């Protein structure tokens, strides 16, 4: 008996704003506890919320990037529940009239190929604070710095059919939002968090099974693992004659185990109602259209352009468009005159290596283009080019040609210099010379290698081989 998996994801993304959603506190991360707070984020008596224009704008930009309909009027609503890190006893969110509905994200399912995942809604809300349960005995410590951080909640339809598909969707969603400039979507910084819903049913069955929710997953790998574990848990229950309860679960990344969070039954009655402190959020259609027109190039368009205009293979396109900055750097290198395929190789190799180590691209694009020119023109070997790159990374203002010369890495094509190294190598290996002459042709490679070694890589290999052949020839 097989089971079909049905997965929907709720993703909370933190738009990159300077201040919080409803107050002038900094939208920052890592301050000492309860220092980045004000009457609004502490929920003090008499404090009132005032929404942040940029958070609204980024929500709209995100909604447009996901192909959603942005509604001219949306309503902030209160979601009422008690929790120590929720100072007002309610979260300001949007409920029956969200900012945007009805979009789609295209991604590549490992099992089904290209799929389209529907976006049910995107709404704006505020984040809660942080509760630390193990810092003090018998006490929960509460830090309210994060209270009021703006969030866009993006809810997908129940369209995903496997944990791997869920991951592919998340990668595509994240890419769209990063490209659109909504958020850095960094799971380490907590600017993207995932709640995953899963149910199983018999193939062909149209209704949905009872779903469970795994909360607060903070890496794509954990989303996939947690959903795998939940799939097995549900199937195990059903196949042993049990039934699935609608519960909320927490995933322990260390043990890979799911734990049922026992939630009081009433806490699901959130008593949503329109927040009387906040008049309707009204957006002029012309303004929304201007934001649409101002959207940057999104991943699908960029991938098509790289394939068409630069003729790059699919693998290269994927790597270069994974992050918008990589593509921007690559394009700057091409714009500075480098051959696109060579530029792609250098960006995917050396430059992404630097990015991983230093978090940036240390070599200015025109310098890298110059270096690529030296390599493709034969002035510097590929090997030597990497040494020049390393030097440029430390001294980005030095011209690559000068660096190559200073390091003695310019290839030597001069006949007399090459002849000197060739003579010395042949003199040092009389046995091999005899074997070559006896017909062991593959030794040519050995001699070439020895000449390169003797020249410390400076000899131009394209000129060494004819020279060797003529000296060894009959």
């Amino acid at each position, binding site marked *: 008996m097989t089971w079909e998996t049905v997965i929907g994801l709720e993703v909370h993304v933190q738009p990159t704003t300077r201040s919080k959603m409803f107050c002038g506190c900094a939208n920052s991360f890592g301050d000492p506890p309860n220092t980045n707070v004000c009457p609004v984020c502490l929920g003090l008596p008499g404090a009132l919320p005032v929404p*942040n224009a940029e958070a609204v704008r980024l929500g709209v930009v995100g909604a447009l990037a996901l192909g959603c309909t942005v509604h001219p009027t949306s309503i*902030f609503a209160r979601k009422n529940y008690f929790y*120590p890190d929720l100072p007002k006893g309610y979260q300001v969110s949007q409920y029956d009239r969200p900012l945007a509905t009805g979009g789609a994200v295209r991604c590549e399912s490992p099992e089904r190929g290209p799929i389209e995942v529907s976006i049910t809604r995107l709404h704006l809300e505020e984040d809660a604070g942080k509760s630390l349960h193990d810092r003090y005995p018998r006490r929960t410590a509460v830090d309210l710095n994060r209270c009021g951080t703006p969030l866009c909640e993006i809810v997908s339809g129940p369209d995903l059919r496997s944990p791997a598909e869920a991951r592919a969707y998340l990668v595509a969603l994240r890419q769209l939002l990063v490209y659109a400039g909504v958020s850095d979507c960094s799971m380490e910084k907590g600017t993207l968090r995932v709640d995953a819903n899963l149910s199983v049913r018999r193939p062909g069955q149209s209704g949905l099974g009872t779903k469970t929710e795994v909360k607060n997953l903070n890496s794509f790998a954990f989303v996939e693992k947690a959903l795998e574990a939940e799939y097995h848990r549900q199937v195990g229950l059903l196949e042993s004659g049990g039934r699935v309860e609608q519960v909320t679960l927490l995933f322990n990344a260390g043990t890979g185990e799911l734990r049922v*969070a026992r939630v009081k039954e009433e806490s699901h009655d959130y008593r949503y109602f329109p927040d009387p402190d906040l*008049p309707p959020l009204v957006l002029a259609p012309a303004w929304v259209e201007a934001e649409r027109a101002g959207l940057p190039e999104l991943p699908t368009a960029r991938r098509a352009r790289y394939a068409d205009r630069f003729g790059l293979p699919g693998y290269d396109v994927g790597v270069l468009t994974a992050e918008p900055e990589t593509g921007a750097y690559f394009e700057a290198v091409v714009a500075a005159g480098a051959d696109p395929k060579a530029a792609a190789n250098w960006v995917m190799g050396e430059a992404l290596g630097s990015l991983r180590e230093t978090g940036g691209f240390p070599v200015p694009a025109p310098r890298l283009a110059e270096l690529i020119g030296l390599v493709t023109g034969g002035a510097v070997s590929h090997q030597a080019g990497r040494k020049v790159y390393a030097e440029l990374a430390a001294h980005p203002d030095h011209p690559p040609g000068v660096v190559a010369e200073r390091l003695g890495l310019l290839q030597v094509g001069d006949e007399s210099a090459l002849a000197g190294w060739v003579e010395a190598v042949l003199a040092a290996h009389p046995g091999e010379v005899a074997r070559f002459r006896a017909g062991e042709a593959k030794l040519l490679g050995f001699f070439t290698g020895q000449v390169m070694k003797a020249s410390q890589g400076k000899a131009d290999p394209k000129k060494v081989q004819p020279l060797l052949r003529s000296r060894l020839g009959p």
Partner: protein
Amino acid sequence: MSLTREQVEKVARLAELHVPPEELPALAGQIARIVDYVGQLGEVGGDEQAPPFLAGPAAVALREDVVRPSPLVRGPAAFAPEFRDGFFLVPRLGHLEDL
């Protein structure tokens, strides 16, 4: 009576409000009286899906995204019932779990 004692107890749990058992019957009677009284609104016909009435501005005025924290004359340590190392402290959650 429109409202049972059990319903009042359930609402009290939702509102995180302790009601001593000896007070419950009288309180439930009063709540029922109020709920019955406001129930007369049910006799008003008309379109319930009509946009709700709004006093004040028709649209919210947005705040510019500028860091301008409202200063506190005194910090949380001055008004928190229990405060240590910069944290508000509360009794650890009983059977509630971290969501």
